[in-house]
């Protein structure tokens, strides 16, 4: 994940910390270790409590000692990681279509026209809207009359996703949508499930009780359906920073 901007408008505050366990991926959330343990640790796919900041590099691969090895200067950098500390930092997090980093989002093709422009009916084989549950998430049109428009999902069934506010144009047969658990209204859902490498958001899973990341915005690239599935982002701020609670 990448730093987009800070809500305070200030510059990034950078510090170097020791890690409690090696970190091999840059751009992932780092947390304070549990009581009695030392250093920072990487977050998990469903947890970001005691958030410190997002890493900018990796910690190396040598043997970790309690306070880092300072007898040799090259080894002295083993176990050291640079972190962005701003608690109000907004991060740009790519939406992935699975737990694998880089996976494309999966599209949903509408099979039943709706002149009320409220209901999207999936084609057989498309992701099921209620399993995992996408209620309170976001549906965006990437092909059709409503291209580029997104709505909050009000209810779901095994074959339909119904939006809260209708689209301006009829939802026609063949219109293509992307359904994500990301919400534009973080008062309802303030969690994000991360990919296995912790650097992207897993939009194929139901987000409930996961990492405390509050959505500030969603950015979908509607230049083409391929771009929409591969180049869509969530802007979020971590909610459980050790510097604010």
């Amino acid at each position: 994940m990448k730093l987009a901007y800070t809500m305070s408008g200030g510059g990034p505050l950078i510090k170097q910390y020791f890690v409690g366990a090696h970190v091999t991926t840059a751009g992932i959330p780092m947390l304070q270790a549990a009581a009695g343990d030392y250093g920072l640790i990487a977050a998990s796919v469903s947890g970001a409590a005691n958030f410190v900041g997002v890493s900018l590099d990796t910690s190396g691969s040598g043997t970790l000692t309690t306070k880092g090895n300072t007898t040799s200067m090259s080894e002295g950098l083993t176990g050291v990681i640079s972190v962005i500390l701003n608690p109000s930092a907004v991060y740009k997090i790519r939406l992935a279509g699975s737990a694998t980093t880089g996976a494309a989002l999966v599209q949903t093709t509408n099979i039943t026209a709706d002149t009320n422009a409220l209901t999207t009916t999936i084609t057989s084989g498309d992701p099921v809207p209620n399993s995992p549950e996408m209620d309170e998430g976001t549906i965006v049109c990437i092909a059709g009359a409503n291209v580029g428009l997104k709505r909050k999902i009000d209810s779901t069934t095994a074959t339909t996703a119904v939006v809260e506010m209708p689209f301006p144009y009829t939802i026609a047969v063949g219109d293509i949508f992307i359904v994500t658990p990301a919400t534009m209204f973080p008062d309802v859902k303030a969690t994000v499930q991360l990919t296995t490498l912790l650097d992207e958001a897993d939009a194929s899973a139901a987000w409930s009780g996961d990492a405390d990341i509050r959505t500030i915005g969603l950015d979908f690239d509607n230049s083409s359906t391929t771009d929409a599935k591969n180049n869509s982002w969530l802007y979020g701020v971590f909610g459980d920073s050790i510097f604010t609670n």
Partner: protein
Amino acid sequence: MSVTVLTPRQYSRAEIAKSHEAPGRPSKRLAGGWIADNVGAQKAILLCDFCAPKFNPRANGYEVLWKHLPPCRGDCLGCKTFTVHGRLYIPQALHDAVAYDGRPRRGRQARSYA
């Protein structure tokens, strides 16, 4: 007779995190050698506006990060002073992981941002 009561201090989470900070450049190391070690370890490098002109990022396979943001703040890797006009350099290999590429401007319906 007075009684002295000792109670364990309650450390805040921020204070505990501060105890995990890396000490930075050892006092007996020259700045150039220390930064060279950081380059070898592919670490992010923060330099103040006095030390930055002495570092050639391109020659070391590094690039400047966050040109769109105000200057970085933190301890300069070279002189160890806290700077509010710092410049952060990252290895080019980490560009895709941490560099912000912005939102390219395209047609009217090309991007939808909520």
